[in-house]
């Protein structure tokens, strides 16, 4: 009896309590994506992309089959093994090379595949002359598009055409009061060895530092693309602290500032912005001879950036993300345009090693008053969520929770400004919302970080990439419907390791028997799948239980 069960939909179930579980996890991690990690049985999925990622990392089908046969509890169906072998075999039959005479070429190890591919309608325009029976010239500008199209045909090409070095720039890590963690070094090294690709690390595991380490390895001018302005500042701060870069060397390219320096940090928003139907900031990509492009939060990368990235295939690219799963299903584009997965560390494992803080999630259910229930039942459909989410009953519960966690840094997170303002007033705490100026935001965040301020009420502006390491308690009073992404990001706020390695607390206050509760269930499913067992408590019992 071993610990792995193979399902017919190519999911793998790993029984974590089993003595061989760790060994098995290591064996299957290269070719299977962790999908769910609840307490007893983790679910991995074997997708063609995952198999090709494994091939790109140098694993072969026999290894995969070996892992199945060694760890599988039940006999593995023959058809599945055949399918895996065939899928893996498709990677690398076509290769992109830099040919000494013809420049960029597509070379086939299997002529039949080349014949199939050159006849495909979508690909015709990207290929040039057939210089040898097995070799076709590729227009250099089509390198990315070709890879994308080949992946769609099911013949992912191995890109061996190499990279331009870019404009050299001395960047070193300024280690002294801190040290690069083992996994961060591994992640940066395996990226550098591969040339381009994606590093998957959970929130709070120090993805920024992996970026910095990668820059110190490439030692060239770098373009960093991040999700928003606050994030730009954070990256900038981190780079100044962790590397030898000085203020003058780092430029900010955002809505307000347009600086181009050896290291430039830009937001997706400004890059994707269009004026009169034209992407007016595209020139940034060509503004310097960038040696490295870093994409923060790859899973959020908008479509226009993908298009631009297709033209950047000769530059080294590093993607950083907490998850390869994209809600829009464009995982294939990440694979073909940014690169295969280069490093992956499971969330729970990092927690066990103490790199991210453990968290305890509690759903607190409040009862609506009879008057509120009647009002809720008669509310317009579009207002129903807002109505139940901002129930007055929640305020007293929040007050009680804060009282119980006195002395801890507490964030109160919500979506509705009225509700946040009310809470701010009731708790006598400052509120950060969309209209709060960036300066003011940063002042408040600084105060919170330093401990001057123990309670902060924030709207969804704080969802992404704001580093509040000392936040130990978060109370979510309302969310934007049921986004799993949001829940992860909010939890992520809490996961920075605490100075005293406390357990973080995450409360979600929801109104019973309303859609608030349904949305909460949806979001919590994600948490449970990430292995955060959550409890449910009645508001009335909060005092006794917690």
């Amino acid at each position, binding site marked *: 009896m071993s610990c792995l069960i193979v399902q*017919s939909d190519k999911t793998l179930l790993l029984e974590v309590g089993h003595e061989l579980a760790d060994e098995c996890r290591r064996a299957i991690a290269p070719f299977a994506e962790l999908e769910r990690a609840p307490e007893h049985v983790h679910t991995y999925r074997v997708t063609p992309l995952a198999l090709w990622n494994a091939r790109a990392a140098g694993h072969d089908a026999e290894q995969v089959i070996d892992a199945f046969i060694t760890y599988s509890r039940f*006999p593995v169906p023959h058809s599945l093994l055949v399918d895996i072998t065939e899928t893996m075999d498709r990677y690398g039959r076509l290769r992109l090379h830099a040919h000494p005479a013809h420049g960029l070429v597509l070379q086939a190890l299997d002529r039949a595949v080349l014949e199939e591919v050159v006849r495909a309608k979508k690909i015709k325009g990207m290929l040039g002359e057939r210089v040898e029976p097995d070799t076709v010239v590729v227009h250099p500008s089509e390198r990315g598009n070709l890879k994308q199209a080949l992946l769609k045909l099911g013949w992912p090409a191995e890109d061996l055409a190499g990279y331009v070095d870019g404009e050299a720039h001395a960047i070193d890590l300024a280690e002294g009061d801190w040290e690069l963690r083992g996994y961060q070094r591994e992640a940066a090294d395996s990226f550098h060895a591969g040339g381009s690709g994606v590093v998957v690390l959970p929130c709070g595991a120090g993805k920024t530092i992996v970026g910095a380490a990668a820059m110190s390895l490439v030692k060239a001018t770098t373009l960093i693309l991040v999700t928003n302005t606050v994030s730009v500042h954070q990256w900038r701060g981190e780079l100044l602290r962790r590397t030898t870069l000085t203020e003058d060397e780092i430029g900010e390219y955002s809505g307000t500032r347009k600086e181009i320096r050896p290291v430039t940090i830009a937001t997706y928003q400004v890059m994707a912005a269009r004026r009169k139907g034209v992407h007016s900031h595209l020139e940034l990509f060509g503004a310097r001879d960038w040696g490295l492009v870093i994409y923060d939060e790859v899973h959020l990368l908008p479509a226009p950036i993908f298009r631009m990235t297709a033209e950047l295939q000769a530059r080294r690219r590093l993607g950083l993300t907490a998850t390869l799963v994209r809600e829009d299903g464009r995982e294939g584009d990440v694979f073909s345009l940014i690169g295969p997965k280069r490093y992956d560390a499971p969330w729970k494992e990092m927690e066990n090693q103490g790199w991210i803080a453990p968290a305890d999630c509690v759903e607190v259910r409040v009862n609506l008053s009879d008057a509120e229930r009647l009002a809720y039942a008669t509310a317009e459909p579009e207002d129903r969520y807002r109505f139940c989410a901002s129930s007055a009953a929640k305020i007293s519960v929040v007050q009680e929770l804060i009282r119980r966690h006195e002395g801890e840094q507490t964030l109160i997170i919500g979506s509705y400004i009225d509700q946040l303002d009310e809470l701010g007033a009731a708790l006598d705490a400052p509120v950060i919302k969309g209209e709060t100026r960036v300066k003011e935001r940063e002042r408040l965040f600084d105060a919170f970080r330093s401990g001057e301020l123990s309670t902060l009420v924030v709207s969804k502006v704080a969802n992404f990439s704001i580093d509040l390491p000392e936040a130990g308690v978060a109370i979510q009073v309302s969310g934007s419907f049921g986004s799993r992404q949001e829940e992860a990001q909010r939890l992520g706020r809490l996961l920075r390791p605490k100075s005293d390695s406390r357990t973080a607390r995450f409360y979600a206050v929801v109104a019973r028997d309303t859609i608030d509760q349904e949305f909460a269930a949806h979001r919590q499913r994600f948490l449970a799948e990430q292995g955060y067992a959550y409890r449910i408590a009645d508001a009335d019992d909060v005092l006794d239980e917690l």
Partner: protein
Amino acid sequence: MIDAEAERNTRGRPPTFTSWLRNLTDTELAALFAARPDLISPVPADIAALAARAAAKPAVLRVLDRLDRFSLQILEGLVALGDDRLAGPPGVEPGALAAALGLPVDRLDPALATLCRTALVWEDGKHLRPVAVLRDIIPHPAGLGPPLRVLLGALPADRLNRLATDLGLVAGYAEGSPAERIAAALSRPERIDALLDSAGADAGPVIHRLVWGPPHGTVSEAARDIDTASAASPIERLLARGLLVPIDGSTVALPLEVGLHLRGGLLFQHVAATAPELSGTERTPTAITRASAGQAFTAIRSVEELLEHWADDPPSVLRNGGLGTRDLRRAARELDTDEAGTALFIETAHAAGLIAADGDVDGEWLPTPDYDLWRETTPERRWLRLAEAWLRSTRVAALNGSKDARGRSRAVLSDGLDRRSAPEVRLDVLRALAAAPEGLAPAPESIADHLAWQRPRRQGPTYSELVDAALREAAALGLTGRGALAPHARALLDELDEQDAPVADREEARSAAVLAGELPQPADRILVQADLTAIAPGPLVPELARELALAADVESTGGATVYRFTSASIRRALDAGRGAADLTALLERHSSTPLPQPLRYLISDVGRRHGRLRVGTASSYLRCEEPALLDELVSDRRAADLALFRLAPTVVASRSTRPVLLERLTDLGYHPVAEAADGAVQISRPDPRRAEGRSVSRHIGEPAPPGPKLRAAAIRAIRAGDAAATAVRRPIPAPDAEPPRSPTAATLSALTAAVARGRSVWIGYLDTDGRASSRIVEPASVDGGYLTAYDATRAAVHRFAVHRITGVADLDSGQEPTTTAEQTAGDPPGAAGF
């Protein structure tokens, strides 16, 4: 068969195929029928009929198709050397055959035994003789031409005379046929060598081109008249010496005797005495067993899953009887597999009788009642049933989607997928795999080579296609794993023919026993997790599986089953009558870990809200503004049969229909008025549907092999028929005397008496032309002016018109026509004294 015995049995007549057959023991006949079941369907009347059938071309071709290359070579050798047109006694001695094949005689024994057992070859004393029709089937055995006698016999007389003269023999017909003489002379090896020498050095290469066959060459004016003197070219010199013989104007043939001598007495350059070695990849036995068992489990699970889907939502039957492409695609999606695999599972389930078209006008494919029985058996038995059904089925799922002759695409479950040879090819393939050493996964090319030796006469694109399909399907059903035959499939092959009954119906099946150890056995433990999923780490006992399927949605299947609890799924369980507390208790009982708190909350949340509104069924209702009137009605005894139910002070519901209620209330003296009624609500889930009839698998092609019992019965029947035909029923000459005469009334009574006593009588009969004849008959019945009787003088049953019978006379016991044919009838008895 011992020579002397054969002599005695045939009473000195030359031995024939028929007499050889007659002298076979019952065991040998049984073996013949087992190998050639077509010979006894229908059962032939006697041995002569059996012999005719066994030597008929189609029947012989059928056996040839099943012979391997070596047996065919031996058979060709027998046809060539045992040609009865050659000089000497007909047939070949095994020793001579072995020498001509260049093998020790014992190497031939197994193949010769098979050839004799299948009655392609029979024993004439020490000689083996092929059945005559083989000469037509194999015109150039071993690439040799016809014997000299045949070739020479066809030449014109003057040409023969000249040839005889050239060879220094007597010409003309004075001392027998010149052809015979020339043939005898040319058959002698030293004569051939001498003639070849005299034909000149340049004739050697010419004749050698024909030596290893084909034994024909094309020459212009082959039939020209030449002699040794006029012969100029090498061909002419060969023709003039009779080393080549013209067959027609443009063809010359190398006579068998000459060809064989020039080959040095050998029949073949290469004798394929053994099948080519199988080669391929080495696999560990564990890998093979595990992969095949996994696939076997997948197959039974997929069939079950599919049929569960079809029970709820059956696909419709196409007009041509098949299953629509869209339904197939949907099924493939539901099973997480490809269409080819799904088509195979569907066809196999059909062959196993688990699905059938429902008899309705717009037919649907539904599981049969057998499916319910199948589901109750153990997993290994379920597999066995499927695997055996596939092995014996004539349907080839792999043909699904291919185009037929008219360009229409063939559909699953339609007639287009029938291939009569499919079961045989499947067995061929599995036996070829079984021939590989354990742990070897033979490469497809190697299997093809092996089968080309095993079934040389079957080769062709159709056969290869069926072989490929069989290999793929065997893998998909778990008969092979990683390309090698699985241990359980090996066991199945071994026990397949041990008994008549299908293996799946036998009490003991070794294949099932072997597989049982590898399949996951049902358990009753599950793991419940905080993300509201429950995982059954293996198959569950049926009862728990049913309960879980009710209370949770199945998210993925395979080795394990993942269930997800949602408020809708829990509501479904509550609707089906489970209580929230029961559900929690059930999960607690079977969960190997503590039940997560969110799941308890979910169940109690749904339970709390469940049933706050209640829905009932009533066929009609009564409304009345005066509660007093309703009080009166409800307590009225006469209305008890209406099953009235008070819902509210002014509302009464009834199970009776509105017309009934109206009528009865009117009878009772109330004056009800009809009101527009609301419909009733159905809340229970309908039961899974099943087809009415049983599945009838279509069988075409080869008659099913008869079992030992049937074979024994066939032997008894043929022996009896034969005894009747040979020993008893030979025509008996009627007495020479005048046919008896008797008055019509006496005739009738005498015949009736003879029928009653079962005695033979002598009758005089006027045939249709009015000629008087004398017959000895065994009357069977007299009825309607006709006598039905066995006519011993004609050895056949006849109907005689009574008015044409001129007279009847008793035969005395010594002249009972039950005596043997050699015993001639004695003097005619005196006419009865009428």
